[in-house]
């Protein structure tokens, strides 16, 4: 039975019961986006631009429409006009207007009676293009003479005289930078680059949509956020939000990439044009990689000042990020805010720009921006530690932030756990493993804010005393199990007596998606409040039954009971007894809670990786990998460990192999998983995990949220390990075998 600083003891929190979705998933019974089917359903295909940048001169769908079985074709002409801001971005990205902005940009969509027919008919849609100059690389896009994606797209933050593709400028910092660098014994400045990577979820985007001429519609869709789908589709198509009912399917991964719309409005528009027949649209892997949000690519300058005993005195970061052809899509603000968040530095300055390029609209990806920022800062920190002969772990501990320290992004930290994390790293046996030839060890820290967000939860007591909880946050990482544990803990009943359902948009108030590591934190917090509300009502019912004051009844061990000897002598009235009588004592008993959840606690982690680099091929093998992270409270530790491992693996892929490879014509060259290389189980050892628990005072059970921080340290940790193993420092990702081999050979020649 775990204990924490709040002196709480738990009956269920911290245990590892069976997963509620386990049987469905291992038997294939779980229903994913593409599993939905309806009578009379049509199948859709999308025509996509083969050009990175091209004016659309003419779209001729007559040959396709002449085919028997083709029921509808939609182009941008079928969408409302006059949208502004992010609504326009979403519409423009869903379906190109006058100009196709990237390879894979949708220009038309078709619905037919079979998927094969739709795909064949799509090939008959003739699109005439005028190919325009394009730009792919982030630094190329910043040139004054770069092809202009959209003139005047920059917002109010962009200084006059900026390059034409700059769409946002950010600057913040504090302290005397000049004095800080003057106080350092060593000042170093380097530039680092990371490539765009995809979230790599196994389940492609899929939906079934139905929309009638009366504006009433339904959608079954694979998403992290059904209300976001509703709001965005309604805006793009000019619908009333309440008339569109969106039901989320089980989800085969999202990692941020399923928090926005891509092809969903096309399915709705096709259904409306086909007389309200339902339309299924399932993306291929190639469609996913060409046309759904990867993260940004980044080019980053970092300058650090350090004393000879390892104290950081000043830091300046200057980041450039492209998030595709749309404003506001890159995570440059988040990257800057996270860059120096692990360390107590007297003087810091952050500058950053977002720049447009002919790439897909970037979507959030697990701790958006933080992994790239960590790569730049943690690598330079490592380089300086080695130059000064200092232990990289000791230097991180010496500079680590803690409660009461001013964060690099401004405020003073509340209760946080980086020091405890680094101490746990120092105590771990992995650090005692001896390294052999061509082997290296890398360490890095990481940070993510975590998020609260709009949340609505409902809880209903069943006739037999079991409990149903309705949440609006799709289960991307164990939310259902964790929320069931917290509900059962609060009510004093068995975990198995609680079922948590992820429900459709008509069943609850607005919920933000499962993003920002918020689902267990925010829906869990709301579920606890909903349970407390139901407890109050059950105590009222018991008080009336006993004929005593409500205040004289307390809830304990799943039952109402007199609060003390003066309240009277009555046997405990269990939740099952109260539920059995509720029809005659006032009707159904439920609880609900709506909030924009405050009290978020930031999460810090540190990773240590040992690698071996083959000097003949440049291939890097992960020998052992350690994740240590502050969870606040691990409600279901097995899921927490899974999140730590998953984040590490995605980061390892980003560090070693994953990248978007574009040809000179601006077309994506590696739009399948055979060529876009994500790590698979056989590439990796078991990822070791240590859960640190520094409870978050802003949550009833101390939860911080654990989904995102784990992807932040792997990029620099792996790069630092490869540098130690090879003796050469690579400052651009991925560290693919050809790149590493070339660096080793160049060192040999030198």
């Amino acid at each position, binding site marked *: 039975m775990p204990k924490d600083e709040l002196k709480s003891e738990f009956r269920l929190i911290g245990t590892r019961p069976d997963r509620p979705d386990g049987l469905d998933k291992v038997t294939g019974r779980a229903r994913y986006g593409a599993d939905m089917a309806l009578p009379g359903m049509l199948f859709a295909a999308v025509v996509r631009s083969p050009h990175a940048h091209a004016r659309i001169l003419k779209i001729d769908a007559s040959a396709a429409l002449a085919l028997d079985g083709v029921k509808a074709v939609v182009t941008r002409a079928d969408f409302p006009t006059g949208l502004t801001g992010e609504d326009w971005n979403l519409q423009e990205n869903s379906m190109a207007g006058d100009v196709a902005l990237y390879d894979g940009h949708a220009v038309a969509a078709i619905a037919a009676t079979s998927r094969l027919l739709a795909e064949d008919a799509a090939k008959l849609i003739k699109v005439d293009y005028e190919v325009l100059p394009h730009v792919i690389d982030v630094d190329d896009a910043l040139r004054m003479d770069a092809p202009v994606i959209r003139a005047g797209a920059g917002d109010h933050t962009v200084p006059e005289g900026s390059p034409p593709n700059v769409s946002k400028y950010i600057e913040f910092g504090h302290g005397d930078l000049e004095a800080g660098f003057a106080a350092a014994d060593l000042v170093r400045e380097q530039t680092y680059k990371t490539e765009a990577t995809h979230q790599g979820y196994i389940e492609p985007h899929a939906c079934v949509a139905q929309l009638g001429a009366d504006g009433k519609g339904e959608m079954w869709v694979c998403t992290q956020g059904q209300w976001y789908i509703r709001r965005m589709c309604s805006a793009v198509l000019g619908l009333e939000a309440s008339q569109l009912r969106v039901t989320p399917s089980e989800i085969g991964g999202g990692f941020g990439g399923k928090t926005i719309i891509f092809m969903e409005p096309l399915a709705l528009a096709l259904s409306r044009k086909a007389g309200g027949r339902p339309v299924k649209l399932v993306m291929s892997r190639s469609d996913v990689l060409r046309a759904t949000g990867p993260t940004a690519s980044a080019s980053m300058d970092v300058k650090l000042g350090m004393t000879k005993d390892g104290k950081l005195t000043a830091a300046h970061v200057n980041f450039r990020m492209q998030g595709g052809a749309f404003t506001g899509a890159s995570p440059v603000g988040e990257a800057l805010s996270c860059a120096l968040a692990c360390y107590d530095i007297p003087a810091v300055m952050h500058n950053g720009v977002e720049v447009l390029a002919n790439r897909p609209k970037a979507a959030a990806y*697990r701790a958006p921006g933080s992994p790239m920022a960590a790569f730049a800062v943690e690598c330079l920190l490592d380089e300086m530690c080695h130059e000064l002969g200092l232990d990289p772990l000791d230097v991180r501990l010496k500079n680590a932030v803690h409660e009461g320290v001013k964060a690099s992004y401004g405020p003073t930290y509340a209760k946080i756990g980086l020091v405890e994390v680094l101490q746990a790293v120092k105590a771990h046996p992995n650090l005692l493993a001896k390294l052999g030839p061509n082997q290296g060890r890398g360490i890095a820290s990481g940070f993510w804010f975590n998020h609260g967000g709009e949340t609505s939860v409902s809880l209903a007591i069943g006739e037999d005393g079991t409990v149903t909880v309705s949440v609006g946050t799709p289960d991307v990482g164990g939310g259902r199990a964790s929320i069931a544990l917290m509900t059962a803990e609060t009510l004093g009943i068995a975990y198995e007596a609680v079922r948590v359902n992820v429900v459709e948009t008509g069943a609850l108030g607005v919920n933000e998606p499962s*993003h*920002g590591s918020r689902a267990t934190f925010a829906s869990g917090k709301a579920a606890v409040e909903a349970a407390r509300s139901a407890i109050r009502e059950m105590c009222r019912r018991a008080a009336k039954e006993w004929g005593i004051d409500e205040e004289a009844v307390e809830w304990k061990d799943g039952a109402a009971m007199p609060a003390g000897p003066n309240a009277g002598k009555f046997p405990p009235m269990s939740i099952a007894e109260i539920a059995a009588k509720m029809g005659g004592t006032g009707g159904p008993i439920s609880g609900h809670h709506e909030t924009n959840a405050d009290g978020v606690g930031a999460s810090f982690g540190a990773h240590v990786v040992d690698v071996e680099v083959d000097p003949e091929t440049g291939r890097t093998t992960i020998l052992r990998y350690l994740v240590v992270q502050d969870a606040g409270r691990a409600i279901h530790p097995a899921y927490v460990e899974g999140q730590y491992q998953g984040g590490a693996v995605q980061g390892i892929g980003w560090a070693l192999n994953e990248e978007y490879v574009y040809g000179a014509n601006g077309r994506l060259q590696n739009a399948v998983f055979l060529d876009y290389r994500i790590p698979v189980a056989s590439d990796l050892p078991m990822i070791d995990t240590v859960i640190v628990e520094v409870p978050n005072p802003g949550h009833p059970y101390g939860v911080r949220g654990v989904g995102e921080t784990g992807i932040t340290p792997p990029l620099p940790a792996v790069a630092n390990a490869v540098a130690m193993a090879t003796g050469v420092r690579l400052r651009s990702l991925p560290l693919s075998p050809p790149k590493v081999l070339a660096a080793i050979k160049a060192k040999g020649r030198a």
Partner: protein
Amino acid sequence: MLKVHLWSGLRRFTDGVEVVPVEAATVGQMLDGLVAAHPGLEPVIAAGVSVAIDGVLTASRFTPVTPQNEIYLIQRVKGG
């Protein structure tokens, strides 16, 4: 009087001021007061900012604030 700390990039909208005094009892009144004092901040605040009270982010305009609180505006953060 509250002291609201802005990020330094906003100084160009506030005549160089980085800590803005505002008379307010809630986060909402504080944001409205910032815009009233420095209208150039209107598009920034309309686009969305995060507010940290004593190091903890708050989302409600109704959250009470006092001169004893440390108040920072920071970049709006989105999660994955």
